[in-house]
């Protein structure tokens, strides 16, 4: 039986070893980039809700404060989704015939909650607490962006650990006075670091060494 492969096929065999290694590296890189991508994580993608509620109209044009609906944001670890009763506070009188509000009226009549879709997601092993951030001078827009300009809300950035640590390592770069926390158009002043260091002292923010402990966010 004669040789199937010519002698120079040995080179191909050796090259294919390198190709295989390269392939594994490339696959790893591609998968890493894919799973970290905004595409996979649905960042900047507006999440359709059962009710065409517009933050742009309510919080932007009409200027309703975040806390009018998200009451518990400065008192509790979670920012509550408003009860249907909160919608009906106004919409029992305003736009009572609107078909866009049918789901809300049905929910109020039957007591079954509106199935709002979650927009901002963190993994189960992250124990994020809204109230501590609000009360220490972290503005809503640092994480949520300008919600007042979103007709349908999207998550403006991925919440990787690096994003959290960016602030936990240097809180003075991000803190603002408490009365500006709910101002989504707030622009950090030129002397932000100086102001931030003053606020860190004033609001009693944890020392940086503690702020970066695992147990701060993970239990």
């Amino acid at each position, binding site marked *: 039986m004669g040789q199937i492969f010519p002698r120079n096929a040995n080179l191909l065999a050796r090259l294919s070893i390198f190709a295989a290694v390269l392939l594994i590296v490339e696959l790893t890189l591609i998968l890493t980039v894919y799973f970290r991508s905004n595409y996979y994580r649905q960042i900047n993608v507006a999440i359709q809700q059962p009710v065409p509620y517009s933050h742009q109209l309510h919080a932007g044009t009409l200027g309703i404060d975040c806390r009018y609906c998200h009451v518990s944001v400065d008192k509790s670890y979670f920012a509550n989704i408003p009860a249907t009763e909160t919608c009906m506070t*106004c919409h029992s009188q305003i736009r009572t015939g609107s078909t866009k509000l049918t789901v809300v009226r049905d929910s109020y009549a039957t007591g079954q909650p509106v199935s709002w879709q979650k927009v901002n997601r963190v993994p*189960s092993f992250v124990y994020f607490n809204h109230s501590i951030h609000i009360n220490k001078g972290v503005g809503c827009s640092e994480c949520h962006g300008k919600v007042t300009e979103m007709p349908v809300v999207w998550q403006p950035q991925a919440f990787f650990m690096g994003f959290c640590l960016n602030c936990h390592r240097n809180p003075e770069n991000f803190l603002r006075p408490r009365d500006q926390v709910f101002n989504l158009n707030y622009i950090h002043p030129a002397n932000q670091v100086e102001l931030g260091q003053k606020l860190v002292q004033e609001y009693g923010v944890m020392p940086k060494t503690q702020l970066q402990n695992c147990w701060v966010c993970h239990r």
Partner: protein
Amino acid sequence: MQSLRLGNFWSVTRRLRHGWVILLAFLLGGCHYDLYNQPKDKTYDPSSFFADGRGSRPNVPGAVQANRVQTDTYLYTGLINGAKADVMPFAVNRALLARGQAQFNIYCAVCHGEAGNGQSAVAQRGGIIPANFHQPRLRVAPLSHFFVTITNGVYRGDTANNGYQSMFSYASRITPEDRWAIAAYIRALQLSQNATLDDVPPDQRATLGQ
């Protein structure tokens, strides 16, 4: 020759040599999202365990919030023997009025306007007429009238004859202490809109209009 090689395919040495493939399969099979998506109900998570499909359970009727035993009836109802009164259940200071102002601007100014005159973007756009706090009826109303209204809301007209809830209760959204702070701030607003030159301390009068 070829048949012999095929026979070798399942030999023990060959199986050992390629055992790593099976090992890798087992290792990859161990990859899972249990830590990322833990089998627990977080706030608002749906649940197939309960009949209504909600992970968060509604309050049991009659449940009392921790440290909120309502022994001080005036603080929680604004009524003394069923009647409204013109006193605060606790002392008023500058910090309380500031708190009242902040809460007023969140929950009340939406309709009643920051000046409390019943004019606001929502009222204009929605075609509703919220109460003006500077009308004579409300200027002489006892202080707890505002507390009771925030707590219970306002019902207009007859229940049987096209009556409707013109203002909903804010009891679930504003704590009793903050409701009192708002009531105190409304009184301050009323005074501010009906002030005369005599209310300004003499040494401050020169700064007016500046």
